[in-house]
């Protein structure tokens, strides 16, 4: 029981998730329903997949602002190249594009020493430019219905998108918590110079995490395009901000060295449940923006008070 209490104290966002869950269960007759729960998971999966990768990058003390643009590029390639390469080929090229953009960001951040915020800010603008040039500012539609059928299909009675999200959450959690790479994520984020002195190859380590988040953004974009059976050049706009919001809500510090996949999952679910519940209550979506913005600031405020009481000094 004490352990449970301690872990809740570490993850204040889960209290909020539970509170929202209970509130909407009573407030709306349509909320407490297995169909709606899988709905929430599907809605959460787009931001969620990127947030999993972003957690690694942010615990590292870095940030990736280019994920929204990468998502659009991967989706456009995966749909746009289908006539030439077939579905499998096009999807592979889409995933590869995410890996390449991540690798490019990682190598630049590693070799030049320029702050990841600036490196990925540049990439965000540049990659979005690439998307507009490649697509000619037009939306692409998947001609082969098998593509959009995949987005609507189910695995073990749950929608495939929700399944992939849950699967990747488990993989990321294991990777972060029980592997050497995961331990190094915290070491590099906590004190980069000390990690280097301790023999961790900081550059290649960060490169891997950038590739991971690039891959996740591409995966998320391709899944989103299978759901719609189409891709638009404006896809994923502002997703970098939503992703960072989810990760920060989950308790990951912007300064690095602290965070968890469980927390990130909480942050992602908080956003998804809030959106879903308010939607069911027919509250206009504008109010969700105001509430989410306020919650982000309140969580930050509570976290700061909490860490000051513990004598940890100034938190993120």
């Amino acid at each position, binding site marked *: 029981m004490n352990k449970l209490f301690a872990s809740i104290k570490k993850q204040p966002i889960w209290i909020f998730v539970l509170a929202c869950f209970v509130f909407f269960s009573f407030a709306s007759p349509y909320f407490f329903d297995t169909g709606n729960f899988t709905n929430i998971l599907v809605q959460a999966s787009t931001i969620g997949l990127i947030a999993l990768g972003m957690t690694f990058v942010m615990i590292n003390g870095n940030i990736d602002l280019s994920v929204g643009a990468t998502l659009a590029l991967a989706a456009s390639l995966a749909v746009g190249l289908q006539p030439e390469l077939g579905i499998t080929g096009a999807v592979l090229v889409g995933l590869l594009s995410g890996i390449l953009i991540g690798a490019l960001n990682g190598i630049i951040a590693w070799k030049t020493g320029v702050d990841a915020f600036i490196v990925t800010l540049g990439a965000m*603008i540049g990659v979005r*430019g690439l998307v507009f040039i490649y697509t000619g500012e037009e939306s692409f539609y998947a001609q082969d219905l098998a593509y959009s059928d995949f987005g609507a299909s189910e695995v073990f009675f749950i929608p495939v998108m929700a399944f992939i999200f849950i699967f990747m959450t488990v993989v990321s959690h294991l990777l972060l918590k029980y592997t050497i790479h995961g331990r190094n994520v915290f070491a590099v984020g906590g004190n980069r110079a000390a990690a280097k002195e301790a023999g961790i190859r900081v*550059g290649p380590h960060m490169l891997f995490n950038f590739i991971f988040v690039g891959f996740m953004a591409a995966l998320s974009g391709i899944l989103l395009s299978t759901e719609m059976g189409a891709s638009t050049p404006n896809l994923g706009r502002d997703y970098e901000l939503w992703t960072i919001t989810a990760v920060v809500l989950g308790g990951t510090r912007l300064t690095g060295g602290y965070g968890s996949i469980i927390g990130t999952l909480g942050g992602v679910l908080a956003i998804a449940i809030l959106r879903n519940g308010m939607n069911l209550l027919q509250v206009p979506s504008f109010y969700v923006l105001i509430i989410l913005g306020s919650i982000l600031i309140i969580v*930050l405020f509570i976290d700061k008070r909490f860490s000051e009481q513990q004598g940890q000094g100034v938190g993120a």
Partner: protein
Amino acid sequence: MKALLDSFRPGLTNREITPLQFFGKHGITIAFFLCVVIFSLTTDKFLSTDNFFKVVMQASIIGTIALGVTFVVIGGNLDLSVGSLLSFATVLVVDLHDKVGPGMAIPLMFVFTLLIGSVNGFLIGYLRLNSLIVTLGMLSAIQGITLVYTGGKNVDISNDENTWFDIFGRGDLFGIPVPALIFIVSAIVLQVVLLKTSFGRKVFAIGGNGTAALFSGLRRNRLVFSTYLLSAFTTACAALILGSRVMGSQNNVGQGYELLVLAGVILGGTSLLGGSGSIVRTVIGVLILALIQNGLQLLGYPYYSQWLVTWVVIIAAVWLDIAAKRGKLFSSY
């Protein structure tokens, strides 16, 4: 080469200045003139007064906002909420224009924009919360407030022939377009404020070392608060230009501006860590972005190719700056 470099620093001839340090310090100015020369040679329309004002016009909205944000960044913080704030202010001034007339609409818009700026300032200055997350939260909250205000509809000025409001976006004064004039005059005023007043020096002090500044008796909280008021003020000025130019406004018109503004500020060499930067260099940074846009368009490249060039230019500029301070081209990690 060495003699040439030394001539830039009389009296310090025994101090080595490596080419790396030279380019790190003056790279952005060199890049600016390089842009001008290249575009002048490759197109015949580039080098004209008309085109010069066109470039400044294009730069005026992002540039005016960037002036205030430069103060915030020098003070060691970030402001990601200026894009949403621009949407809010533009929608407000356009909507109020038809309801209470331009004479009342403009001051009201300034009041409400500064009010939101002071919320930023209070949270970051007085509660000392992380500026990136607070302004990220405000970005979404302000967007929400704007949508609630308009009910999701776009606004416009019904009678755009019969109002003096068009002067800010479309007017001319002494042969200079008014948006360019607003940009240039605010840049000059703020450059003087930054360099010649105690407020400007204090902003450098809190950005360079906040704790040291606090112990030297500076009111850090109030200073941070003022920098956010300033960025809200310049955003309101930009909204005046934007609303008047379009004579209407979409409710997400400023979406994405915050990052373009930051790109200009960073390109000008203002360090995101705070404590260094200058208004003149921010102006140069923003103008380079506008020059690239203008030049590539004149050369007939697709519109979005400028974004690719921006990508390269931003990273190259910051890399040079860092490499010069480090004394080595590549990092040791």
